[in-house]
């Protein structure tokens, strides 16, 4: 068995209504620190986690959406967003946080972390993973 595994964290829940989105992010950050290949998928209400303009100041709860912007620095650069889930919710990529990373292998060029993919494409990506964790 190779010592580096491909992890895919599948985020399915909206933020704030439940803690799953936030506690998933905590696992992602630890996973990245273990030098594994960590990828994220946003499916169903999980796409709401990365909607821009979140403001929890009236809710006495922590706004953790800025943390997604830090993922690139942890080497987490593949954020797959299912197109069917966006469509059902009337969202487009423009409604999402502008998540970027600097590509070490391309003279630190700034690139998009988010890839909008179809369900069929995502199904193939699932098959390529070693570890799938749902949140």
């Amino acid at each position, binding site marked *: 068995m190779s010592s580096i595994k491909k992890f895919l964290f599948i985020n399915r829940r*909206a933020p704030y209504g439940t803690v799953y989105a936030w506690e998933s992010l905590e696992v992602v950050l630890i996973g990245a620190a273990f030098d594994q290949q960590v990828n994220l998928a946003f499916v169903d209400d999980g796409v709401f986690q990365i909607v821009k*303009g979140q403001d*929890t100041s009236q809710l006495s709860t922590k706004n953790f959406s800025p943390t997604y912007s830090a993922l690139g620095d942890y080497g987490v650069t593949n954020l797959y967003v299912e197109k069917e889930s966006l469509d059902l919710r009337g969202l487009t990529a423009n409604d999402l946080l502008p998540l970027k990373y600097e590509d070490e292998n391309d003279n630190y060029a700034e690139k998009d972390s988010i890839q909008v993919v179809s369900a069929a494409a995502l199904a193939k990506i699932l098959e390529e993973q070693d570890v799938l964790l749902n949140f």
Partner: protein
Amino acid sequence: MSTLHTVNKSPFEKNSLEACLRLAAKGNTVLFFEDGVYGAMKGTAVADKIKSAMNNLTFCALGPDLKARGIDALAGHAGAIAAGHQQCVQGGQRRDA
């Protein structure tokens, strides 16, 4: 006192909104809060269902929950008024569907 129905789950994840629309009587009010506020967004797969229910029901959504989720600008087909916690108390919240 008119019944106020509350919906706290996303209409894309759970069947709470559908049950509410089925069991609310004419003249009732429906309040979206917590993840239920996603039901107040324009242009979604459930928006038409709510629009047609507006003939019989009044809809509102909790402002702080809309803002937290970054959808206050995306929300608001006609009639879905954002309300604060204060207004909820006065409006008379009574959970039933």
